């Protein structure tokens, strides 16, 4: 590969700048997010984790065009694997992540091998069926492994063999996840997730720019033609499926690392649908889009759902009494338990007016800016993203 220009899209240099900007933006999130009321560890962790999940999903959906409706299964498998690693081995998060990736890869291989025999809607339905099957199994016959509806938890008397061998197993207090002594809650937990997000983003970028990524995009544009030219596309789609399953498993492990609890509801079809929404909302096929989509959806879920009458009254307090009551009544429909409605409206608007998601919006604004500016700067960050 030539050092200056990568296979597709931006040059190596613009990629590097883009990567640096992304890393800076992620690591300074506690700073800028506090201005929109999101500067607290839990939401920041969720941003990073679901961002990673969506990036992985996008490797499959954005590049190959295969729409999986069952990706939450891998998220759940990753979580369960991680929590079992906490219970049986050690509270250190690194083995947990390794196991989560391993198990989700195995499951992705099995599910992908079967599902990828079909394309289009049949593929989607197959993956959905497998995910629902995993969910129902976790709920019923696998209760000894998953603890059913109650959820799998760590308890002080877990074996934790590695800690036992090292003589540091403490059965008196509730164990907390750690990275060699640093507790994985609060801001340290966020920075850990953020670093993994940045690494995941970098890998996704390298995949998209590589010949392998080009192959995946070719599958998206016309698989039949690829087959006629004598190409066996199945290994490529299967590889993409497994890689994106591993991303999901890793996200599941991070969820368990920041909060050592795994429940079957993580595998429900609504969770699978959520990652599809994130990717489409942000812009399928773009690198940054899924991360933005994940951030927007998690922001709505956590911030909008928390608005109540009290908050609205304070917001509209500048209006006269009669108008205020009306404004609160109308706005009340869209916040609190109505946050789904707001999300639905936003999603509709974006799909209708910006089919390419938020990234298309950014591109349009950028173009507008460039035209009025008259300069020919190659703001490739947004373009190539």
């Amino acid at each position, binding site marked *: 590969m030539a050092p200056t220009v990568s296979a597709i899209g931006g040059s190596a240099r613009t990629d590097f700048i883009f990567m640096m900007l992304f890393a800076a933006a992620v690591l300074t999130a506690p700073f800028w997010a*506090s201005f929109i009321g999101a500067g607290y560890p839990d*939401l920041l962790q969720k941003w990073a984790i679901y961002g990673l999940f969506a990036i992985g999903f996008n490797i499959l959906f954005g590049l190959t065009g295969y729409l999986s409706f069952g990706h939450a299964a891998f998220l759940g498998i990753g979580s369960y694997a991680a929590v079992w690693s906490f219970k049986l081995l050690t509270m250190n998060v690194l083995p947990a992540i390794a196991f989560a990736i391993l198990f989700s890869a195995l499951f992705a291989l099995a599910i992908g091998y079967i599902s990828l025999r079909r394309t289009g809607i049949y593929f989607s339905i197959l993956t959905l069926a497998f995910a629902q099957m995993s969910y129902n199994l976790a*709920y019923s016959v696998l209760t000894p492994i998953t603890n059913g509806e109650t959820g799998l938890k760590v308890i002080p008397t877990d074996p934790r063999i590695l800690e036992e061998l090292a003589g540091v197993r403490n059965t008196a207090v509730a164990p907390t996840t750690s990275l060699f002594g640093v507790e994985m809650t609060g801001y340290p937990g966020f920075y850990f997730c953020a670093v993994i997000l940045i690494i995941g983003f970098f890998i996704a970028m390298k995949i998209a720019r590589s010949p392998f990524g080009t192959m995946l995009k070719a599958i998206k544009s016309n698989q039949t033609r690829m087959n006629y030219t004598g190409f066996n596309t199945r290994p490529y789609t299967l590889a993409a499926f497994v890689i994106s399953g591993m991303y999901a498993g890793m996200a599941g492990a991070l969820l368990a690392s920041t909060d050592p609890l795994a429940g079957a509801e993580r595998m429900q079809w609504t969770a699978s649908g959520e990652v599809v929404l994130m990717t489409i909302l942000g812009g399928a096929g773009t690198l940054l889009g899924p991360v933005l989509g994940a951030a927007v959806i998690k922001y709505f*879920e956590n911030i909008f759902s*928390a608005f109540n009458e009290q908050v609205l009254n304070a917001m509209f307090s500048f209006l006269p009494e009669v108008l205020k009551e009306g404004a609160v009544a109308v706005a009340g429909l869209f916040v609190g338990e109505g946050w789904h409605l707001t999300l639905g409206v936003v999603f509709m608007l974006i799909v209708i007016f910006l089919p390419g998601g938020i990234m298309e919006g950014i591109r349009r604004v950028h173009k507008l800016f460039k035209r009025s500016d008259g300069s020919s700067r190659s703001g490739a960050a947004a373009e190539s993203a």
Partner: protein
Amino acid sequence: MTVFNKGVSRRSLMKGGVALTAGLAAPHFFTKGAYAYLNEPKGGSVTLGFNVPQSGAYADEGADELRAYQLAVKHINGEGDGGMLNTFTSKALKGNGILGKKVEYVTGDTQTKSDAARASAKRMIEKDGVVMVTGGSSSGVAIAVQSLCQEAGIIFMAGLTHSNDTTGKDRRANGFRHFFNAYQSGAALAPVLEANYGKDRKAYHLTADYTWGWTQEESIANATEALGWQTVNKVRTPLGAGDFSQYITPVLNSGADVLILNHYGKDMVNSLTQAVQFGLRDKQVNGKDFVIVVPLYSRLMAQGAGENVKGIFGSTNWHWSLSDEGSQAFVKSFGAEYGFPPSQAAHTCYVQTLLYADAAERAGTFAPCDLGKALEGFEFDGMGNGPTLYRADDHQCFKKVLVVKGKENPSSQFDLLEVVQEVPREQVTYDANIPQFAGSLGSCNNGA
């Protein structure tokens, strides 16, 4: 890695490094302060967190809980008619907020999922700076949030949660429960079942497959077996199953003459309706009428199941038709505010909020450890359940339990249950460390 060698000088790298370090360190400057305990309120107000299901299978209960919380805040701040503050035996609260601070609140949606509930509670603790989280409706969720609050170092006042584990195996020093539990349901129901259905019965359990269902099944089976009943079978059903026909058909041929439904919310409405549609209640088995028992009843569920609840026994924590002073005061101010009577979920949440405020007032601080001590062993009355004790050993309230029956001739859409018996506190009291409950509170946590 050619990419990374391009255009990065040592100087720019160092600059970036310094900026990055500053960025990493920044949030900690904001979070660190001189706090005696986590989220100590410094201004003229104090914030409470109301974490209830606003969507999902228990959304009806959640909506009613939220109404009760808002009413409680009004009364504590001295607005409205004061409700149960007038009948409560402790007179520490003066209607000027808590410790002179105006009470404010934030709300969140648990979605009846542990994940969402914990995320929502974390937001309240980390962002909104609440000193207490309260809520519930699913024991799984309540237990998950309770352990979160223990780890974070704030007080959790459990709302509607009926599993033994909440104050049993999973009890925590920072968590408190006013609502009754499955064991108490069994102890209260058994004598009534014996009086009505005799000693020689065969019971078949259908059970919601999670912590609450498990403990209720165990408690009811123990209580009925002590009467001499046999347990024919125990079948677990997934939460939110919707269609229970595949579980009900085998009951017909099992030889059982009692069906015990360990279901709640929409599950109970569906399973009961289907059991009645299958004609179970018209059958004769072993020469006896086939009967159905619903150990945990609520008026909201009775409304959902309609006609089908007539004559069916169950237990409940509180009912709006009670005639004591406290209940009357609460029903009156709730009715004036919202236009209909409160549910048992609303009642327990309202009482929990008042109890928390009262304990803070008496302790003179919001610090979880001191406040917890004020609640432990606290004896009070005037809250609708008669004389009540907050036991120190497991943070469970002990008070009378109501045995209720679906009314044959309801006079209104809310008048669906009649109180058969008010079971005295002594009959539902147990030792804190009997095998079904053995757990450890651990030590209280003040956070910071």
